[in-house]
C-alpha cells in the first residue's frame, strides 16, 4: 500500500471509529491535500469534519488546541514542516505545556501532522528536516513514519493518545509502495529492528532508514553485518532497544538528513556514551546533512544530505579505521 494511502486509511478509520476526530489544514478538504493524504475524506465526512483553513499555521495549531481542550480529537495538517515554523508559539509554548501548567487538568488529544525533508530541488525554504526542534521540547511526543506500517499504525495510535503528538512524514515517501503489516499491537514507543546484524548498530528514522538498508546490503558484501534500528518515536527515544543492540555490536552509527550539529545523532551518541562507554569498540559515527541550507542545484543538493553511496563509504572507512 502506498505510504500516502496508509495515512489516508488511518485517518479514515479514526474518523469512522470516533466522531470526535476531525481534520483541519490548508487545502486538506476540497482539494484533497497538497500531497493527497486526505483525498476523499472531505466527500465522505463533509466540511464540518474536514476543514479547509486559511494560510495561518499558528492559528491552525491554536484552534486545534482549543478544539482538543473541549474534547474533540483534531488532526491538524501543516502542509510542510517548513511552515510549522510559523506555528512554533502554539506548538512550543502552548501545545507542549498546557497539560503540565494546569497540573494535569487539561488534556490535549491532538495530532499535528507534517511532511519534511529534501524532495528534489525545492530549495532552502522547502527542504528542511526539523525533527530536532520538536524532539527537544518536553511535553510533545514526536513520531515518525518510515513506511506504510508505521504510517498507518503510528498515526492511528497517535490519534488515540490523550497527549499531543507531532507526527512527521517524509515528502519522498508518499508515493512509495510498502507492505502494510497487520501489527495489531504496534507500539510507536518501541523502536523497530528492521534488520539484525552482529557488527554495527545503525540507528535511523524516516526516509534515511531506506538509504541505510541499501547501504547495509552493500556492506554485507564487505563482510560487515549491520543491525538497523528505525526510531519510530523521537520523543521519547526507545534507548533500551538501542542499548541492547550496541551491547552486542559495540559500535554505533546514527544516520539522519538534518544538519549534523545539534541533531538526533548528538542525543543518541551522547546517551550511548553515557550508558555504554566501556562497551564501545569505536567512537560513535554520525552521518548527516551538511551545515548549510539546502541549495537548489541538484548536484549541490545531493552533496548536502546523506546518500546510500555515502552512507556505505563512510561506514566502511570508519569501521576500517576502527579495527573491523
Amino acid at each position, binding site marked *: 500500500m502506498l505510504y500516502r494511502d496508509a495515512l489516508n486509511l488511518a485517518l479514515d478509520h479514526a474518523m469512522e471509529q470516533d466522531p470526535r476526530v476531525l481534520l483541519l489544514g490548508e487545502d486538506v478538504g476540497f482539494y484533497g491535500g497538497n500531497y493527497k493524504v486526505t483525498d476523499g475524506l472531505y466527500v465522505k465526512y463533509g466540511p464540518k469534519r474536514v476543514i479547509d483553513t486559511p*494560510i495561518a499555521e499558528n492559528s491552525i495549531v491554536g484552534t486545534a488546541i482549543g478544539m482538543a481542550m473541549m474534547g474533540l480529537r483534531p488532526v491538524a495538517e501543516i502542509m510542510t514542516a517548513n511552515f510549522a515554523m510559523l506555528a512554533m508559539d502554539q506548538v512550543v509554548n502552548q501545545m507542549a505545556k498546557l497539560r503540565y501548567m494546569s497540573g494535569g487538568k487539561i488534556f490535549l488529544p491532538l495530532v499535528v501532522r507534517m511532511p519534511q525533508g529534501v524532495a528534489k530541488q525545492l530549495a532552502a*525554504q522547502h527542504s528542511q528536516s526539523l525533527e530536532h526542534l520538536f524532539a527537544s521540547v518536553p511535553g510533545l511526543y514526536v513520531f515518525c513514519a518510515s513506511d506504510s506500517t508505521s504510517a498507518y499504525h503510528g498515526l492511528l495510535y497517535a490519534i488515540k493518545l490523550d497527549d499531543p503528538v507531532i507526527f512527521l512524514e517524509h515528502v519522498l515517501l508518499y508515493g512509495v509502495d510498502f507492505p502494510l503489516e497487520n501489527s495489531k499491537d504496534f507500539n510507536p514507543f518501541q523502536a523497530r529492528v528492521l534488520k539484525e546484524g552482529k557488527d554495527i548498530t545503525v540507528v535511523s528514522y524516516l526516509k534515511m532508514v531506506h538509504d541505510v538498508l541499501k547501504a547495509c546490503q552493500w556492506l554485507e558484501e564487505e563482510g560487515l553485518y549491520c543491525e538497523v534500528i528505525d526510531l519510530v518515536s523521537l520523543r521519547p527515544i526507545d534507548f533500551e532497544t538501542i542499548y541492547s543492540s550496541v551491547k552486542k555490536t559495540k559500535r554505533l552509527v546514527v544516520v539522519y538528513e538534518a544538519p549534523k550539529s545539534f541533531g538526533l545523532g548528538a542525543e543518541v551518541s551522547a546517551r550511548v556514551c553515557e550508558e555504554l562507554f566501556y562497551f564501545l569498540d569505536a567512537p560513535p559515527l554520525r552521518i548527516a546533512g551538511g551545515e548549510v541550507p539546502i541549495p537548489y*542545484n541538484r548536484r549541490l543538493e545531493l552533496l548536502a544530505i546523506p546518500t546510500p553511496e555515502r552512507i556505505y563509504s563512510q561506514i566502511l572507512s570508519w569501521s576500517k579505521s576502527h579495527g573491523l
Partner: protein
Amino acid sequence: MSQTLAEKFYYLMKLGRELEVRCKEEYLKGNISGFLHLAIGEEAVHVGAVIGFGKGDLFCPYREHVLALARGIEAKYIMAELFGKVTGVSKGKGGSMHLYEPKMDFYGGNAIVAAHLPHAVGAAYARKLMGEKAGVLAIFGDGATNSGTFFESINMASLWEVPVLFLCENNQYAIGTHISRSSALKDLYLKARDYMPSVQVDGMDVFVVYEAVVKAKEYIEEYGKPYFIEALTYRFEGHSMADKGDYRSPREIESFKRRDPIKLLVDKSLQMGWLTEEQIRLMDQKIEKVIEEAVEFALNSPEPSEGELYTDLYCGVCSDVIP
C-alpha cells in the same frame, strides 16, 4: 506617451509569457526542477505594477519571473537560475522561487507565504529614515491576506507611516482553495481600508493597473505612508507544475482566458493606434531571439562547483551590502 507605454507593456508581457511557456517545456524536459510557479494570465499585474512603480524596492512572492523581467533582470540570468547554473541570478542556489538582485532593488522571491511583507515594511522604514522617498512595492496573493503576518504588516506600516505599496494579486485561489473557502471578506481591499487608502482594480488591463500604481506611488512618495491595491486577476495554469488546476471548471478558466491580458492590450492598442501589427511582429521576433539566447546561455553555462555548497553562508569579511 500611451504609444511608448503600450510598446513597453507588450514587450515585457509577451516576453514574460513566452519565457514561462518555454520554462514549462524545459521543466518537462528535465532541465528545470523543483517548484515552478507560472504567472501566465497575471502579466498585466506584474508588468503594470513594476513599470508603474518605477524606482523603489521590490519584494515579491515565489511567482516572480515576470516581475524580475519587468524590473530589468535579463531573461538569460533568470533561465540560468532555473537551470541551476552558476551563472544564474542566485548562482543556482535559489531556483525559481528565489531570484534576487539587490543592485536593481529586487529582493526576491520568497517561498514562505507573506514572509516578505514585514521585510517590505522594514525596508520602507529604512528608506524613509535615510531620507529617500521612493518607497517599497510588496506583491502577494489573495491567500497571503489571511495570514497573521499580513495583518501585522499593514498595521505596522500604517502605525509607523512608511511608504509601502501593498499590491494584492487576487487570482481567487491559494493552491486548490478558493477564496470563498478561506477569507471572510471577499473584497480583499476592505481588509486594509481602515489603515490606508485602498482600492480594487481590474488586474487584466495593464493600463488600469499601471494608472492605479502610478497614483499610489505618488501618494506614498508625497505622504510617506502606505497604500493598498487589490488587482483582480486569474492564473491560467495550475498553482505550480505539480498542480493541474483541475479544481476549476473549464468554463471558469475559459471565461478568464477570454480576457487574456495580452490580448486585451493588443486589441486596445491596435484600436487606439498605439501599436501596429508590424511593431508587434518585430517585437515577437525579438522576444523569440531573446528566449532562444536565454536557453542557449543556460544550457551552456557550468553548474556550480562542489566547493560552492559552503560558500555564501556567512560573508566572512563583510562589506557594506546596501547598494
